[in-house]
């Protein structure tokens, strides 16, 4: 009987619309050419020539007044427009029920369905998923609501209206708190919710914990598909990432990743909860996986043991064997085990597949690599699959950013290549491969890495007096800065590998220097701010401020709020001119 009421409401509203339309229509027929005014789209549609008559005139004036009223209001509104939208509550469990494309003229907005609210309600009444989800002949739950296959638009709409409204009304009559029953409350034009759904990450820690829980039975999750038998089977050492097979969309013999994940992960979680109640198990609600808060709450194992899948510890990355002789550059020693620690999934470098890079990224690029050649795959500045790209990101780590932020992105010096391409040349790779077993064989010898000049030459504090007209000179704790930066470098394996030499720390600020040179002082290069001969070089004034402030900002040391933090105020300010050299 509720539904009857809704139908009634439908009819009522449609009726009202028709009435309005009719109203405009009659206006249109009136003798004063109002229709154009009503049809904003085409004002050129003027009034047709009409018989003059007294009531035409009154019609005219009436129409004019009407115009005035009709049009003036929206303008006033238009003036103070963008009235605040409703505050939307974020939810991780939103399901958008949108079947509008099944209709030529959808009458209502799509529906936001908060799934967890319903699961909770259902479980409170000791019902289970089957209350809403049908079971398929393969005994899996259909992800669809109350059906296995999609009927036509009208039917589908009926199916939703019937069941949703019926269930809500039932509970409402039973005095249980429940959902809406009228059209507008479900089909809202101003959505109540805002989806805060986060994709789930299955990182090494989580993988390890599942391994433990399944006592290392990989086959519980990992499987292959056999065309002949149309069966899933498991083969040791072939484990790959789910996405390797399960793609965005369901294909003929493989379901979509989304479906697979929910069937397998969620299914398993639910099973465990039923079989061994009380035991620790994975989440069974949307928020458990897709809510940011809950994700952060998931227990993380610090550096879990490696996932063993027969991957190497150490590789000499070269062109594929077939192309070895045509490749010129020396091979790149690469610590696979080292990188496993720094990335929490394999996909960071390997995309979906677990193949070695060169299998797809050949020198010229291949079908699988979509033409991305090896050289690009490794050096692409903006990709985080590539070595250079990923290392570039490393530079934005606060500990590195202080020096690296001011440097040109992806800047290469003449030494850059050989730092990575330090392995044996491709042509005698076969011969020398056995000689190297780990990256440490390539790490520079610390003995050659010491300062090329006595530490005593590094000043403890530097007095900067260029603003001395206005301020007391600034004192820069030079020594402390050097120590801190050196410490950062020493603690970072990547830093010590790429710039282990102790001289390098100077180059952070004293750029354009080289190993073994006494660093040049700022004022040696930076002079007046406007130098037509080399306009790219900032003046001394800016050089100091950009270097200091830039570093402070990027290392998160905090920007000085006011000048006085570095420059003690002078009692008498003589002039505003900031530089003495004018």
């Amino acid at each position, binding site marked *: 009987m509720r539904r009857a009421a809704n139908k009634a409401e439908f009819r009522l509203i449609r009726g009202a619309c028709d009435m309005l339309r009719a109203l405009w229509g009659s206006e249109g027929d009136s003798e004063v050419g109002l229709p154009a005014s009503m049809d904003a789209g085409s004002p050129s549609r003027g009034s047709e020539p009409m018989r003059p008559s007294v009531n035409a005139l009154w019609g005219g004036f009436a129409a004019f007044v009407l115009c005035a009223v009709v049009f003036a209001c929206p303008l006033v509104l238009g003036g103070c427009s963008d009235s605040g939208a409703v505050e939307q509550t974020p939810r991780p469990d939103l399901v958008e029920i949108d079947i509008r494309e099944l209709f030529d003229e959808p009458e209502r907005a799509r529906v936001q369905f908060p799934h967890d609210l319903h699961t909770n309600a259902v479980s409170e009444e000791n019902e289970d998923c089957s209350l809403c989800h049908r079971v398929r002949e393969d005994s899996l739950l259909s992800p669809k609501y109350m059906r296995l296959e999609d009927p036509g638009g009208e039917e589908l709409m009926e199916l939703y209206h019937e069941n949703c409204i019926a269930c809500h009304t039932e509970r409402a009559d039973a005095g249980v708190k429940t959902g809406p029953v009228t059209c507008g409350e479900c089909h809202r034009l101003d959505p109540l919710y805002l989806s805060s759904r986060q994709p789930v990450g299955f990182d090494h820690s989580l993988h390890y914990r599942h391994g433990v829980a399944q006592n290392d039975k990989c086959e519980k999750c990992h499987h292959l598909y056999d065309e002949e038998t149309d069966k899933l089977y498991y083969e040791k050492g072939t484990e790959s990432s789910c996405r390797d097979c399960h793609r965005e969309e369901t294909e003929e013999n493989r379901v979509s990743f989304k479906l697979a994940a929910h069937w397998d992960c969620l299914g398993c979680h639910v099973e465990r909860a039923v079989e061994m109640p009380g035991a620790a198990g994975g989440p069974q609600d949307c928020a458990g996986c897709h809510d940011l808060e809950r994700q952060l709450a998931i227990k993380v194992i610090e550096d879990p043991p490696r996932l063993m899948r027969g991957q190497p510890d150490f590789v000499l990355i070269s062109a594929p064997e077939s192309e070895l002789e045509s490749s010129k550059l020396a091979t790149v020693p690469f610590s696979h085990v080292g990188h496993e620690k720094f990335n929490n999934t394999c996909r960071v470098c390997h995309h979906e597949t677990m193949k070695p890079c060169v299998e797809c990224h050949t020198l010229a690029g291949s079908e699988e690599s979509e033409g991305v050649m090896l050289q690009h795959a490794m050096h692409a500045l903006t990709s985080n699959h590539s070595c250079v790209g990923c290392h570039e990101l490393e530079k934005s780590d606060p500990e590195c950013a202080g020096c690296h932020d001011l440097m040109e992105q992806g800047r290469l010096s003449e030494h850059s290549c050989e730092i990575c391409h330090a392995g044996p040349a491709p042509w005698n790779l076969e011969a020398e491969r056995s000689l190297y077993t780990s990256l440490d064989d390539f790490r520079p010898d610390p003995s050659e890495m010491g300062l090329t000049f006595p530490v005593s030459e590094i000043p403890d504090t530097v007095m900067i007096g260029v603003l001395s007209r206005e301020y007391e000179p600034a004192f820069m704790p030079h020594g402390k800065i050097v120590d801190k930066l050196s410490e950062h470098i020493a603690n970072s394996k990547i830093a010590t590998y790429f710039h282990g030499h102790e001289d390098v720390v100077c180059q952070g600020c004293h750029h354009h220097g080289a190993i073994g040179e006494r660093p040049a002082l700022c004022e040696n290069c930076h002079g007046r*701010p*406007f130098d037509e001969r080399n*306009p790219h070089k900032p003046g001394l004034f800016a050089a100091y*401020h950009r270097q200091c402030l830039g570093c402070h900002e990027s290392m998160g040391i905090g*920007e000085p709020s006011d000048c006085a933090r570095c420059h003690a105020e002078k009692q008498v300010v003589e002039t*505003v001119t*900031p530089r003495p050299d004018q």
Partner: protein
Amino acid sequence: MSTSRRKFLKWMSAAGAAAVVPKKARAHEQFTGYPDSYGVLHDTTLCIGCRRCEEACNEVNDLPAPEKPFDDMSVLEEKRRTDEKTYTIVNRYKPDGEDKEPVFRKFQCNHCKEPACASSCFVGAFTKTPEGAVVYDASVCVGCRYCMVACPFDVPAYEYDKVLTPRIMKCTMCHPRLLEGKLPGCVEACPQEALTFGKREDLIAIARERIRKYPDRYIDHIYGQQEVGGTNWLYITGGPFEVLDFRTDLGITPAPELTSGALSMVPVVVGLWPALLGGMYVINQRKDRMAAKEKREAVNEAIETTQSAADEAMKKAAEKARQDREKAVEMAVKKAAEEAAKKLEGENKGKES
């Protein structure tokens, strides 16, 4: 007297100059602006909002002191614009949320290559100098404020409170200082060189270079390179320009081009209208004259016809009179003859008896 002479000279100088217009100065050729004009590049990613530029500007232009001192950063709380007491201001923006690093943007005259103010001023008070600065001459300004209407950047401000000598106030790019070989006040004061002074061409090169070197620090656009035909003040930013109250809907048409079409219709109207209207006048005149003439002829004809009719009647009357007279005579003669005959007969009878 002097003014009229000056006017005359102005006109003539214009005419003279036109007489010796160099070859390149033709409308269909693109005007590229003064080749070595200077400009300033404002890099908002470097600006720290210290307001030293405002302070310096205030000093070098001897502008009145502000209510709040320049080291009071609370003024950054609300959005400001330049006014008759401030040639330049810095506004703060929080594009990535309240807690994130703010972004600062400096406002002042952008010194268009083809200034709308100059184009719109009916006393030519604004001049685009070869140095690139757009300067204003208060000695001829009438105070119509059309420049303020025309300026796409809402830069010119007006001294509404001055009674006798209200002026337009706006940044001069420190033109006098440039001529002395000094930097603009704001540029000189900027601790970050977020303001770079130089030849406009060089500045564009610098901007391009920075964008190339730091692809993800900048968005790839130099504001002012194209806008309204190009400005001598250029900007590069780390985020969308609209967010920093840059108007991105201005297009690249130089302001003078917007009105040149309408202005070029003036001589055409002066040329055509008199002829057309004169012609129409003449036609109407002739129509009237013709009408008058016809009327007159009609009248004459009417008169003639009546006249002739009258004569006819007269003739007839005369003729009739004559005939009557003749008849009368005849009859008289006849009568007399009879008398005589009778008499003669009577005498004959008397003789015979």
